Every structure is written in C-alpha cells, then in structure tokens.
C-alpha cells in the first residue's frame, strides 16, 4: 500500500491522521516538524506527504519549496487549520490544499486523487 508521511507539530493530529489512514490501508510515517525533511524522505520513501503549514519550529511553505526543488514529482498536500495561506504564492507548489477538519473525508479524497495522478514524465 502507498506510504503517507505526516509532518505536523501537533501530536494529536499525527495520531488521528495515522490511525485513520492506517485504517484505510495506508502505511504511515510521522515527523513532528520539517527539519531534515529531505533526509527523512530519502529514508522513508513516501508516496505522498501531508504537510502542516504553521509549525512551531518550521514553516510548512518553506519546507514545501525544499521538497519541490529536490523531489519534483513527489505529491505534497498542504493541510492547515487556516485557509488563508492558500493565497500565498508558495502554496502553488503543492499538489493540493486542505483545511484541517475532524472529518478527514476531504483529506482522504485528495490523497487518493494525488496518488492516481498521471502526467508525462
């Protein structure tokens, strides 16, 4: 099954997402911030990353640029409590943007969608 890397500084979010996504059959890895993200990706080899934006020790939008410059086609879904970051030009580099909710239907839908995306490579 595809592997999802969850990058979020809130422990309860990591637990909630991990539990729900594992129930869906995904393999899950977690990280509490974006530091050392490139090494983490090399190690975990995720198929998709769920990335928080407002984290205590890192800015998810900067982490996204780091990821995109090295892993051009790796799907990244920005997942934030705030919809307002969608207006930030940096968010364009994400595959999708989801506003956090206790109902993970939208997030799961986006994960499925980015995983089935096929483009000329």
């Amino acid at each position: 099954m595809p592997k999802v890397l969850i990058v979020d500084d809130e422990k309860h979010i990591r637990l909630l997402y991990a539990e729900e996504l594992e129930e869906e059959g995904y393999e899950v890895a977690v990280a509490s911030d974006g530091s050392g993200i490139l090494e983490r990706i090399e190690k975990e080899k995720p198929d998709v990353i769920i990335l928080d934006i407002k984290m205590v020790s890192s800015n998810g939008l900067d982490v996204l640029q780091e990821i995109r410059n090295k892993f051009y086609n790796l799907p990244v879904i920005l997942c934030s409590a705030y919809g307002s970051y969608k207006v930030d030009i940096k968010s364009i580099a994400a595959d999708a943007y989801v506003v956090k909710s206790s109902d993970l239907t939208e997030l799961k839908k986006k994960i499925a969608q980015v995983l089935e995306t096929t483009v000329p490579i």
Partner: protein
Amino acid sequence: MKFQEDNPSGITKADLVVGIPSYNEASNIAYPTEQACLGLKDYFKDLDSVIINCDNSSTDGTGKAFRDTDSHGIPQMYVSTPRGIRGRGNNVKNLLRKVLELDAKAAVIIDASLKSITPLWIKNLAEPVFKDFAFVAPLYVRHKYDGTITNNIAYPLTRSLYGRRVRQPIGGDFGLSGKMAGIFLKSPLWDEDVSQFGIDIWMTTIAVNEGVPICQAFLGKPKISKPRDPTLEVGTMFRQMVITMFNLMGVFHDKWATTKWSKPTAIFGFGIGDVEAPPAIKVSKDKLYIKFREGFNNHWDVYRSMFSSENIQKIREIASLDIDHFEMPIPVWARVLFDCAIGYHKKTLDRGKLIDILVPLYYGMTLSFVNKTEGMSHQQAEEYLEDMCLVFEQSKPYLTYRWSQ
C-alpha cells in the same frame, strides 16, 4: 532560414543569453534592453553574458534603438530574419540557434514592449535554469481581466490535457536551458503558426511533454506592455495559438490520453518585497454580449452540426439569457473546446471556419467570467479559475471518448 547578423564584439561563446524578439518596436525596446542588461550585470556578473535582439527586419529603426541603448558593458548582438519574413516564432528560432552556437547554458526570452520589467526578472527567469530546471515560465501579478485567452483557454486546456499547472503558458517571457533550446530547435513540429504567435504555447507544451523539470518564476510585478482591450484582443494571435494547441493535441494524443488530474511545478522568486497591484482593466460587457449574440445567430447551423446534443441544447439556452444573467457553465465551455479540438482533428469543418465559430463562444465565456468574478478580489478570481480547471480535468473523459470514436 538564413539570417542577418551583427556581432560587433565578436562574441563566440556565452554562458547566459537574453533574447528580445521584436518587430517594429523602436519606441519600446530600449527599456527592456537596459533593464535586462542591468539584471545580467547585477546578478550574473561572474558569467559571460550577451543580449541579442532577434528582429524581423523592422523598418522603424528597432535595431538602431537596441544598439543605441546603454548596455552597461553587456555585449550586444543583432540578428534578423530576411526582409519580408515575419513572426515571433521565427525570431525565437533564430535566438535558439544562437544559444546553441554560443554553447550557452541558459537563455531568457523577454518581450520587446515590456514597460514593467526590472533587473530582477532576469534573475528569476535565469537562476532556476542554473538549478537544473529546464524551462521557466513566468508568474505575473495580473488583473483578473487581463489575459482572458490564457484564463479561458490556454491555462485550463494545457493543464487538463498534459497535467502540469503552468499558470502563464503563453506569458511571452521565459527561461530555458541550453539543452532545452536544442530540443526546441530540433523538433520536427515547427510550422507556420508556430513561427508566428503559436510559439509560446508550443514551447510550453513541448517542455511539459518532454517531462523536464519546469519552474514558474514569480516576477512580483504586473506585466505591462502594449495596452490591450480584452474585448478586442481576438485576432491573429488567438487563431495561431488555438490552432497550435489543436495541432499539438494530435501529436501528443498518447500523452494526454493517459494523463489524469494535474501536478504543480516548482516555484521560484520569493522575498521580493511589496507586490505591485496590476492596473485596472475595463471590460465592455455590452460588446462581449453583442459579439456572442451575433456569432450565435451567424453560426447556429454550424453549431448544431458540430456539438454534441447535450451541448447544443445548453448553448441555445445560454443564448437566451440576458446580459446580467449571462453565464456559460464551465462544463459546457470545456466540452465546447473539446468538441472544437475533435472537429479540428477529424476535419469535420474547414479549420479556418472552425476557429471563426469558436470566437463568439469565447466572447461568451469571457462575459460569463466577468459576470462571475466582478465582485471578487484578485485572489478569489484565481480560486474561481482553479475550480474551473478542476472541472476541465473532470470533463476529460468526454474528450477521450469522443476523440477515439
């Protein structure tokens, strides 16, 4: 095609080339030339750079205006197509030749009529190439009614067909690697429309289908060049751009037929301070409505033979709407474009006529976009456009099915 060349500094090698395609831009070319030279001097001083005016043998003294501009020590070259040979694409082709001859690692193409370019544009369009991106498309701040061909056709169609989100696929200002220049130049897909205004969508489409890493460079300022009324912008450029898109759909059928949804590109160019707001653009809704209605009345018989039954019923319904309630539902617009592409591919109608019948519907779509977004901020309009692209992506099975029938 042989070209005329003036190379006073005897340049035979360069790391970075800036090219300015032009035709009769004597009154405009000095400004982008000087800004580009400052960009090369300020941000790439360790590289060997050259600036080249790629011209169509302008008769208004464009070449002289270019040569007379203070280039701040950057060597200048002038190349031109022979007299009588016109076309932006021909100028770009000459530039690509020079990029290969000079063995350049990177090239930047900018419009000759730019009034808002700063030296930073050169940095942001060229630097990603030195970070291994093969093609760099511009990201401007644009008014929601600026670039209606881009918003209603080029962006949603390119994105939904080939799966890469390039927001300004016909922006006109690009960066590319020397290797990409070679791919473009050796392509067997050059034709008359590409040699004219089809060149921009052609380069973007080829780059996307090559699967090379693409970057969008944020330029921080609006693109201001020659003023244009969106109501009147349909003409040669529209025709050549649409025909080029439809031609390439035939060439890259295997690619788009297997493409599903879309992916982003990398973004470059942050931290450039305050972003300048784009100038307001006035749109005449009355003119758009009249042009739609006239076209609908003139081409109704053709529409009936061209479009699917579900679409034709909707188009008739839309034509009965008054101006204030006028709306072209996005699924209908997506299917109109898809039906036209299929008609072009299957030659069910003379290809020139096909573009004629599309134009009024494009005016209708533009009016619909204006009605939908007139109360929206720039950002809200962008989100509306993103939703529009999603509808195109969702509607793609309609195209795939009907294309193969």
